[in-house]
């Protein structure tokens, strides 16, 4: 009897959190809608959620939203791949070279907090008014967290694991690939997550500023036309890009780090 009931209970529990999340979001939208309708919120600043919802069709029919969505998503993907390869490589090189690390780590950290988006004219001079400017802005803004977290992850490898490698006489390359890198992977993923957030913000921001490309340009156009419901609907698609990337990243993490996604077993005893 217990055996038959248990899976249902677990299944209900696993759906509970997403349902509560969705319910809270719908409740929030209803509250905003209500506040606008009774006049407590200005509808010329915040359009009613129902109007935003109705604008989606218009974005598909008139604004070529699908193409724009994939354009921005493509830029994010390219910047994400570039930052993963370059950020991890630079992080590894800096972690291995004490001199380089001491010389540059502070600079990289400072670079992370710099408002890079303001340097877009320089990038336009270098790359022109095209997608490369946008991708490079996203790439460079995402680089510092990946570099810093790679350094932190490798440096934070437990000494006993390094000693296990030494006791098995591993070469430096084996030590890196078989111990340091897998041990650092959870921290590196934190860096990639942060980097992707920075990349998306800067990519959409640059599209907006240089009025070129995907969703950022559309948001700019709609805002200039004072189409507020359309602007907010376009912002929803930016959020969709973000959600898409985080789901993809989570899948990649599950594949690369299955040990962090298994149920926990007994913690005491022999």
């Amino acid at each position, binding site marked *: 009897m217990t055996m038959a009931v248990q899976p249902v209970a677990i299944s209900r529990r696993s759906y509970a959190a997403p349902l509560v999340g969705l319910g809270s979001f719908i409740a929030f939208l209803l509250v905003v809608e209500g506040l606008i309708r009774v006049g407590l919120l200005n509808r010329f600043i915040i359009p009613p959620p129902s109007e935003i919802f109705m604008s989606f069709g218009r974005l598909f029919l008139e604004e070529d939203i699908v193409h724009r969505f994939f354009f921005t998503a493509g830029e994010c993907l390219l910047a994400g791949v570039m930052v993963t390869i370059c950020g991890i490589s630079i992080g590894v090189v800096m972690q291995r070279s004490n001199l380089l690390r001491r010389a540059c780590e502070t600079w990289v950290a400072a670079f992370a907090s710099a408002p890079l988006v303001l340097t877009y004219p320089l990038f336009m001079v270098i790359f022109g008014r095209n997608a490369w400017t946008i991708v490079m802005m996203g790439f460079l803004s995402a680089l510092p967290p990946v570099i810093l977290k790679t350094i932190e992850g490798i440096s934070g490898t*437990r000494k*006993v*694991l390094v*000693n*296990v490698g*030494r*006791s*098995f*006489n*591993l070469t430096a390359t*084996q030590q890196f690939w*078989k*111990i340091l890198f*897998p*041990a650092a*992977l959870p921290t590196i993923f934190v860096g990639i997550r942060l980097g992707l957030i920075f990349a998306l913000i800067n990519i959409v921001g640059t599209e907006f500023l240089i009025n070129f490309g995907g969703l950022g340009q559309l948001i700019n156009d709609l805002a200039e036309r004072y189409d507020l419901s359309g602007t907010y609907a376009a912002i929803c698609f930016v959020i969709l890009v973000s959600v898409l990337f985080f789901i993809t990243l989570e899948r990649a993490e599950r594949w690369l*780090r*299955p*040990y*962090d996604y*298994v*149920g*926990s*077993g*007994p*913690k*005491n*005893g*022999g």
Partner: protein
Amino acid sequence: MPFSAVPNNAILVADDIVVRFETPEGPITAVDNVSFQVRPGEFLSVIGPSGCGKSTLFNVIGGLLSNHQGIVSVAGETISGPHKSIGMVFQEESAFPWRTVTDNVAFPLELLGMPRDKRVERARHFISLVGLDGFENRYPGELSGGMRQRVSLARTLASEPKILLMDEPFAALDEQTRLLLGDKVLQIQQKLKQTTLLITHNITEAVQMSDRILVMTYRPGKVKRIVDIDLLRPRSSEVVGSEAFGRYVAEVWNDLREEANRGMRDEEKNALRQKERAL
């Protein structure tokens, strides 16, 4: 009990090991003129109070510490770094969390370039030896502390070392688990005729498992005495209840008590000194 005679045909020889560390308070001699030999198939424990240099000695013999004086040799070959003949089991949990039990145990075989199917088969033998059948595809995060230490032990055994070197491998476990794992280690040691050097601060553990116990003095760590344990083999944790076992424990404790007292007094003095400095 007299000093133990030097064994013939030693597989492991530590000769006149001296380790000094530079500290802000000046140089400290952690290990001083430590010499001993281990016979093939023998189980030798090194016991001493905290701070006597046991773990330093573990690192010297395992080749992880190079700035020492004296010689360590395995089967007549002087070693100056980690050596394939010595397999190490560490005090801290050292199973790789990103590898399953099988992949952890197969790790040394992977380094040898053994094909996957062969190394999995070989790994399963050692997993079975440490009693982890059924957990082959689990990750260390799904296992208890004792099981994780058994994974580390199986991984080290899979490299088929001539000497198994263990540094307080059960220190973090509760007493009952420790006794049961002691049984497991004894079974394995007897089955494989595995030469074993155990670093420990636990007298019961040392007497339960060892053929000889090397008692170390508090800082600087010197050999105070080597005690022969003439308990019958094969042994198990049941030996703990025997009269002879109690006598050996009392005997080792008599040697250790003085050293442990010295250690405690020294730590108290250090704490007072630090407090005075802070004031």
